[in-house]
């Protein structure tokens, strides 16, 4: 195990990630509304040592009640519309919705119209758009980091 840990330390060093900045954080709740699963693979990859999003204060949380951002993948199927709305309703304010991947952005959607609900944009206010099929872990990181780095609203003094 210590060999593994030493090895991981080396991977992290070689990844040469930018230094952490500020002391802010973002709690993200993922919701799969009908993806092909590749968006999930890339989102999972952001936790791997080569990306390590946790060091920027970004973490996946287990409940929408703890989340700042609802990160949605997939074209929103009929059967996931209800769970999607309930997850959003359960979130404390202020809350943001992020569309992860072309499916969630409503472009290039494959499927039978009869099985799909409306595009995510029509169901919830989308604030963060991360295009790609699937977006790479770098693109996901970039999309989420814009929120972490955005000036606080209302502007706070320190930080």
């Amino acid at each position, binding site marked *: *195990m210590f*060999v*593994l840990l030493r090895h991981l330390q080396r991977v992290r060093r070689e990844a040469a990630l930018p230094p952490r900045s500020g002391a802010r954080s973002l709690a993200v709740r993922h919701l799969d509304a009908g993806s092909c*699963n590749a968006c999930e693979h890339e989102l999972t990859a952001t*936790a*791997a040592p080569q990306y390590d999003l946790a060091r920027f204060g970004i973490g996946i949380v287990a*409940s929408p009640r703890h989340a700042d951002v609802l990160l949605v993948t997939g*074209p929103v199927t009929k*059967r996931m519309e209800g*769970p999607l709305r309930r997850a959003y309703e359960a979130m404390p304010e202020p809350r943001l919705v992020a569309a992860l991947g072309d499916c969630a952005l409503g472009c290039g959607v494959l499927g039978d119209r009869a099985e799909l609900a409306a595009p995510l944009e029509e169901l919830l206010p989308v604030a963060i758009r991360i295009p790609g099929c699937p977006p790479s872990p770098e693109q996901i990181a970039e999309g989420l980091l814009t929120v972490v780095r955005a000036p606080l609203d209302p502007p706070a003094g320190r930080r």
Partner: protein
Amino acid sequence: MNSAPPVIALSAWREACLGALDRGGRFCGAYASGTGAARRWNALFADGAETLVLSADAGAADPPTIVDLIPAADWDEREAHDLRDLRFEGRESQRPLATHAPETASWTVPVEGRGTHQVVVGPTHAGVIESGHFRFHVVGERILQLDTRLFYKHRGLERAAEGRSPAAGLAFAARACGAGSVTNSVAYAQACEAALGLVPSRELRRGRTVLLELERLYNHLNDVAAICAGVGFAPGNMAFATLKERALRLNCELAGHRFLFGTVAVGGSVLDLDAAAAGRARGELGELRADAEAAWRELAFAASFQARLGGVGVLSTEDASELGAVGPAARASGLHIDTRGTSPGLWYGSAFAPARPPAASGDVAARLEMRAAELPVTFELLDDLLSEPVRPGDAAAGGSTGPIGVARVEGPRGETVCAVELEGEHLGRLHLRTASYANWPALVHAAAGNLLPDFPLINKSFELCYACVDR
């Protein structure tokens, strides 16, 4: 498989299916096609490199169920009922599969007794996991019965592909599952080529085999990481996630996409590696192999991790066979089926021998070791294939054409079966049955009798996809 199969009368349907089994066939899916008086109920049986298609006339009456003869047909019949409006004569229960009825009792198995209660999970989960709903009937910590409700992600991909050209239909098969995109695309392309009478060239067979093995590589690395995550063993999870990331980057370097999207076409392949690129890839794969083997050795010494794996989530050989399990999960239970050995349209050759599990104990430990045992086979295959350039290939007319084309392709989690029926120039029906679809009933069965906190581990040891089941 190229002439339309003779239509079997309903009275002879059960007999015909039994006959196919008796002659050594392995049930590998069933689907409804056509409408009105031309409606058919089709069952597929794998027999060596061939796939036998049996077709029943379901135009005027309901076909008799075969689920008592072939338990593996359970989900196929339930799906045909829900999505294609077919009923089955003699089925004791017709619990919904794809239809989400509001009353829980309509789709769960009744479990009663002192102290029994239900633990309900999903459709959304705590981590980055696909959507699906589980209902555990438990006594204390012990799972008595697990009822799953999937199809939350049903996008109607098969129906949406119908009416399109074979070339346009590929996108639907490809996006059924991100992590099995190559497998499903190759199965679809081969099924179309079988119907169109196209014979793949040597280069096409080699190119597709390279892509399939690259897909297997990153998936197997992913699955080892996932099993580590299933018990919360972060160092193992991160070590294999790192290796998987390297495999994805290699995919991107070789084929321009981390998940190899867009690399398969009907009647062709776009993978183009000259000697230098193939040589570089071999070098990188060699390094990856050495590091994967080193990480695997470290896992073997992680006693607290190893102690969690044995005897958990056991799937017996008999149950694996009855339930129609495929892929590493089936092999870990002692079923030696690997479609790679009978794939003349690919580049495995007659000498291909699937890895044998160190112990076919059918538990989490065996499924984990199966992945590790298969990795060297994949590395060897890739090393061999990349010893010369891989050029774009094509498929030329030459075979017999027919209204139905069927193909079976071994993916990371087992066999994908794809059937296409052509109506003139267009797809009349697309049927895609992936390894995850075949293995879900086996996972559900293996979970019963185990402790609830072990379920994530059992689940990860199968690492089934929801997207390609729901389609």
